[in-house]
C-alpha cells in the first residue's frame, strides 16, 4: 500500500479487490496488502471509521450481548460507518482501513490482542450475513480441506447429531451437510458444547462453518500482526517519522482512553487508606473483594489478580502491596506461608518476577467475561451475583428505591457497565457521561468528584 499526500486518484478498485483477496462477495479476507494509492486524509479518516465499528463491537461484547443481538449490532455499525454508494469504493475503504489499523494495533501484545479479537468478531458476523453461495466461495478461498460427511458415516452418528441440535435449542430434524474436522479447528463450538465430538473430531453443521473459517481468519491475521510489528519497528517507524508515525500513534491513543496500567504519579495510596477509599470510591467488584479479604483473610487467585492489579493501578506501591496482603493472609496461612506462596505472585504483578511484564489492571470487559468458580469472589457483581445478593450489596452501598430498581433492570438486560455507571451516579450524586469501562476509571472519577466537593466546602468555609 502506498500513501500519497496529494489528491491523486485512487487506483482501480479492481486491484484492491484482488489484493484484498476477495473472490465474489463483499467480504475480503485481507490476505495481501493492496497495491493502491491512498490519500493521507483518507488514511486517517477510514481508520477512524473502522475504529468506531470495532469499538462498538467491543462495547457490545462487554455487555454480554447474545449472538443474534451481536449480528444486528455489527450490521448496523457497518452500515453507519463503512457504507459507500459505490461498492468498489466501499471495498477499498474496507481494505485500506483494515491495513491501517494493523499498523496502529501491531505494536504491543495488548493492542494486538484487542484488534485481533474485534476484527475476528467483525468477520464472524459479516460472514454470517453472506449468502450460502459466497460462504462456500470464502471457504474455498481459505483452502479448507474438508469434505462433507459421506452418507454412511452420517447415518451412524445421526442420533447424536440430533441430540446436540436439540441441546442447543434447534429443531430435532438434523441438517444434512456436516463436516468432520479436528476439534482444534473449532474451539468456540467445543467450548459451548455446540458440536458432537468423537475420537478427536468435531461434527460441524453447514450452519456452523463460520467457526471453521474464523479460525483460519484469526490465524492469518495473528501471524500478519506479528510480521507487521517487525516491519514497523525495523523500518516503517523511522522512515515515516514525519508523516505516518504521528498519525498511527495518535490513532491508538485516541480511542483507547487513558492507560490505567501505570498509576498516575500524582496519586499514591497507602494500605491504611484502603478501607476509607473503598467506602467512598471503589466500584462494587472491588469493595466486595476487600470485604471478603477482610472476612476470610484470603482470596483465591482470580481475586488476587483482579483486586491486586486494581490496587496497583490506584497507586499502591509494591512494598505497600506486600504489607497489605501480608497483613490479611498471615492471619489465615501465617506470614511464612505468605512469603513462600503468595508474595511471589504479587511481585510478579509488579513486574519483579518471572517474565517481568508490568501487568495491567483488568478492564470491565475482561472482568465481565471472567468465569468465577467455587470459592471465587472476583468477576463483575452485576453479572455474576444472583439477584438477592446484588440487591443486598447495593443496599449496603446506600443505593435504594428507584435507582436500585433501575440498576437491576439494566442487569436484566445485561447492560452490566451501565448498571455500574448508574451505581456511580447514585452514590456520587453526579452524572457520569463517559460511562464506566474500567474499575480504575471508576476510582479516579470518584476521587475527582470528591475532591471537587471538598474544595467547594472549603471555599465556602473560607468565605
Amino acid at each position, binding site marked *: 500500500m502506498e500513501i500519497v499526500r496529494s489528491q491523486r486518484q485512487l487506483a482501480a478498485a479492481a486491484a484492491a479487490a484482488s489484493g484484498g483477496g476477495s473472490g465474489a462477495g463483499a467480504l475480503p479476507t485481507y490476505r495481501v496488502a493492496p497495491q493502491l494509492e491512498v490519500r493521507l486524509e483518507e488514511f486517517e479518516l477510514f481508520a477512524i471509521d473502522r475504529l468506531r465499528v470495532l469499538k462498538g463491537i467491543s462495547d457490545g461484547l462487554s455487555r454480554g450481548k447474545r449472538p443474534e443481538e451481536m449480528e444486528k449490532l455489527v450490521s448496523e455499525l457497518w452500515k453507519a460507518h463503512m457504507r459507500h454508494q459505490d461498492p468498489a469504493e466501499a471495498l477499498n475503504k474496507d481494505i485500506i482501513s483494515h491495513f491501517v489499523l494493523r499498523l496502529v494495533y501491531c505494536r504491543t501484545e495488548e493492542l494486538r490482542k484487542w484488534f485481533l479479537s474485534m476484527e475476528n468478531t467483525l468477520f464472524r458476523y459479516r460472514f454470517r450475513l453472506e449468502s450460502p453461495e459466497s460462504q462456500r466461495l470464502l471457504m474455498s478461498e481459505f483452502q479448507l480441506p474438508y469434505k462433507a460427511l459421506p452418507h454412511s458415516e452420517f447415518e451412524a452418528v445421526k442420533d447424536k447429531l440430533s441430540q446436540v441440535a436439540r441441546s442447543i435449542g434447534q429443531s430435532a430434524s438434523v441438517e444434512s451437510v456436516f463436516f468432520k474436522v479436528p476439534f482444534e479447528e473449532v474451539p468456540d463450538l467445543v467450548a459451548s458444547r455446540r458440536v458432537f465430538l468423537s475420537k478427536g473430531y468435531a461434527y460441524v453443521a453447514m450452519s456452523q462453518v463460520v467457526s471453521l473459517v474464523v479460525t483460519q481468519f484469526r490465524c492469518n491475521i495473528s501471524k500478519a500482526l506479528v510480521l507487521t510489528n517487525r516491519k514497523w519497528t525495523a523500518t516503517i517507524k523511522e522512515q515515516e517519522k514525519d508523516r505516518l508515525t504521528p498519525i498511527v500513534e495518535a490513532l491508538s491513543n485516541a480511542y483507547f482512553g487513558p492507560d490505567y496500567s501505570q498509576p498516575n504519579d500524582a496519586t499514591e495510596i497507602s494500605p491504611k487508606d484502603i478501607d476509607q477509599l473503598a467506602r467512598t470510591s471503589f466500584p462494587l467488584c472491588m469493595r466486595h473483594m476487600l470485604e471478603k479479604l477482610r472476612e476470610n483473610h484470603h482470596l483465591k487467585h482470580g481475586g488476587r489478580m483482579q483486586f491486586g492489579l486494581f490496587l496497583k493501578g490506584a497507586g499502591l506501591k509494591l512494598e505497600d502491596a506486600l504489607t497489605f496482603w501480608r497483613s490479611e493472609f498471615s492471619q489465615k496461612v501465617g506470614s511464612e506461608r505468605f*512469603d513462600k506462596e503468595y508474595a511471589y505472585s504479587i511481585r510478579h504483578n509488579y513486574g519483579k518476577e518471572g517474565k517481568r511484564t508490568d501487568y495491567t489492571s483488568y478492564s470491565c470487559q475482561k472482568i465481565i467475561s471472567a468465569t468465577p468458580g467455587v470459592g471465587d469472589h472476583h468477576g463483575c457483581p452485576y453479572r455474576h451475583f444472583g439477584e438477592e445478593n446484588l440487591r443486598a450489596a447495593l443496599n449496603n452501598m446506600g443505593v435504594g428505591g428507584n435507582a436500585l430498581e433501575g440498576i437491576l433492570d439494566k442487569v436484566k438486560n445485561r447492560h452490566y457497565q451501565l448498571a455500574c455507571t448508574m451505581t456511580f451516579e447514585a452514590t456520587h450524586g453526579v452524572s457520569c457521561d463517559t460511562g464506566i469501562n474500567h474499575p480504575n476509571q471508576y476510582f479516579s472519577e470518584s476521587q475527582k468528584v470528591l475532591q471537587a466537593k471538598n474544595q467547594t466546602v472549603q471555599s465556602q468555609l473560607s468565605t
Partner: protein
Amino acid sequence: MGDERVEAMEIDAQQRQEVAAAVPDGFNADYLRIYYGKLFPYGDFFKWLAYGNDAKHPGCDQSYIGRRELSFTLENDIYLRFQSFDTAAELETSIKEKCPFKIDIGPVYSVDPAKRHAYAQSGNNVFVPVERELIFDIDISDYDDVRYCCSGADTCLDCWPLMTIVIKILDTSLRGDFGFNHILWVYSGRRGVHCWVCDSRARKLSNEQRSAIADYFRVYKGGENSLKKVSLTGPVLHPFLARSYTDVLKCFFEDKLLHSQQLFASEERCQKILELIPDQNVASELHDKWQGNRRSSISKEDVNAARWEQLKTTLQSGKHKTQGLRRCVEEIVFSYTYPRLDMEVSKHMNHLLKAPFCIHPKTGRVCVPIDPNNCEDFDPTAVPTLSQLLGELNAAGMQIDSENDWERTSLEKYIRFFRTSFLQPMLKACKEELETAYSAKLQQSKNTLSW
C-alpha cells in the same frame, strides 16, 4: 511353585509393614535425601519428558528436553524456577544435590529457560512456551459445600468418591470425545488429583484450544455469590453430559454420596437442596412433607433415600411438566457430584504442576499414579508414605537380588504401572510419530531436489 510365590509375597508385604513402623513417621530433609538417593525413578521420569527425543534417531529434536522448565522448591522456601536439564544424569545429580521439597513441571519453551535472559535482549517474544501437556488440577477442598465428612484439605473414604467421579468422567471424555490416548492420573499427595494428557496433539494445543476443552467440561457457574451453581439449559442434554449423568453421576449420587454424606439428614441440608428448586410452591410442598415424615417410621438410614425419592417423584410427576423442574433433578445431582476443575490451570500453557513421584510435605505421601480403569479401588489413605518406604528399604537391606531399590518397596507396583500402562505405550507412539515425520521430511526434500 505359583503358590509359594504368592506366599512369599504375602510375607514380604507383612514384613514391609512391620518394619515400616520402625522408622518414625514424618517428613524431613534427611528422609527425603534417602528417597531421592535410592527410590525416585529418574530414568522413567526423564524418558517421559523427553518424548522419544533422547534416542539416536536423526529425526529427534536434541534440544527438546533441555527447553523444559522444572522448578524446585527447597526446604528453606527458596523457589528455583527455570531449571533445565539435558540428560537424565544431570537431572539426577541436581535433584540429589538440591533435595527439593517440591518439584514442579512447566512448559517446553522456545529456548532453554535457564538461558532466557540471554535471549531477552534480542527482541520480542523469543522466550515463549511452545508445548505443554494438557493438564487438569482438581482439589477436593473445592467441594466443601457438598461434603459434610471433611473440609479444607482433609479427605476420607466418604468424600474421596468425588475424585473417583472426576477421573471416570474426564478420562472417558478425553479418550472418547477428544481422541487422546496417553493420559496419566496422579494423586496430588493430599487433597486431590492431577491429570496429564501427553499425546503430542495435546501438547501442541494453543491456549485458546485449552480453554475450549476446559469450558467443554464446565457446567459450574456463578462463583460464591449465586445460589444455583449449576445451570443446565436446553430441552435435552449434550451427549457428553447425558452420558456422564446416566453412566456415572446418577449412580454415585444415589448409591454412594446420598448415604455417605447424609445429604438429607438435617433440616439445614434439606434446605440447601430445596433452594435449588426454582418453584417456591414445590419446594415448600416437599418441605412440609419432610417435616411430617420426621416423626414417621422411616429409620435414620432410610431418610436420605426416602426424601430423594419423594423429591424425584414430586418434580417428575405429571403435575410439574415444565421443563425447568424436570431438569432440576439433574441439576441437583450435577451440583453435588460433577467435577469441579481449577480452570486457570488448564487454560494456559505456562502453569506449573507438581511432578508425579514427589512427596507431599504435609502428609508424607508419594504422588503416585492412579489407574483410571480401577480408580474405584484407589484408597488415598493407603498410599505409601515416605517413612513407610524407608522402613521397607531398611527391612530389605540385605537382599541384593533386585536391580532397583524401589523393587523392594511398596513403590514398586506404582512404578511398574507407570511404565507398562503409561510410559511404554506412549513412547511407542512417539517413536512412530517421529519416524513418520522424519520420512515425510525426507520425501519432501527429495521432491524439492528433483525439481
